[in-house]
């Protein structure tokens, strides 16, 4: 059985609304971070590895020009 008569009462929780909702919102936000942050780190890592590979492949196929490119960037 739903314990509240109206949505408004559900939000207010008999005066304890701010405490209850603040607890749930803060907790869910920081816990969601535990899932989001590894996904972001993985994406960044994949990009880095692909870039490293491409640079290495360029260096192997044409050592002189690849040297120029990396020096030009630095």
């Amino acid at each position, binding site marked *: 059985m739903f314990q509240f008569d109206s949505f408004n009462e559900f939000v207010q929780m008999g005066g304890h609304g701010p405490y209850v909702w603040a607890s749930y919102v803060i907790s869910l936000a920081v816990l969601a971070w535990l899932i989001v942050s590894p996904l972001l780190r*993985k994406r960044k*890592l994949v990009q880095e590895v692909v870039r490293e590979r491409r640079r290495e492949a360029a260096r192997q196929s044409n050592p002189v020009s690849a040297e120029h490119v990396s020096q030009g960037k630095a």
Partner: protein
Amino acid sequence: MWQWFHRLGSPRWFYQASGKWLPWLSLLAAILLSVGIAWGLGFAPEDAKQGNSFRIIYIHVPASFLALAGYYVMALAGAVGLIWKMKLADMVMKSAAPIGAILTFVALVTGSIWGKPTWGTYWVWDARITSMLVLFFLYLGVIALQYSYTSQDAASKSSAVLSLVGMVNIPIIYKSVDWWYTLHQPATIKFTEAPSMHPDMFHPLLVMILGFYCFYAVALILNTRVEILNRERRTRWVLDMLLNSKKGSS
């Protein structure tokens, strides 16, 4: 037996196996947490003394459970890494530290918010609260040590030692409510006795605790997998997998 042990220690094997577990664990965690939150917020009966503020228990207690269980995971992984030089165990320990820190943070913050309408204050230096704060600092210490060495081996070794030394805090947290009877109430749930809660309030709590366990497993696996990729980024299998999936998806 030893073959199994070696396989478990192989980051590559763990990466592939955990990839199969992840969808199921995530689904289970999502279902348990959604059911538990809806049940706890809307359908569990109001507490006779505390009114609706008691609904914070459905976050506070599971988060505290996992903050402690997460410490066991971290210290155990640290010990395995120290004794058998198992690389995977070091990676698990490193991944467990921020997860534990966040769960401890959630336990402290929800407890503090709950304290205001119940005890009239956000914070007291009660034994249970103070020992949980120490737990939080232990987690932060392990995280800090991970980043204060240039050699990953030295970082793993010293954070494993810190997490093992920090184990002394765990029984203090458990016993704090019995040794110093100050403000925090004694444990609501004990393995040796029937719960002191009404079943209508207890069942959603059980669902939330199970949901938090599954969530913890998902978070730990996700973080460990990235750590594996990062440390094995020069190996053939990681390169093959990353470069092929990149080609396939784009």
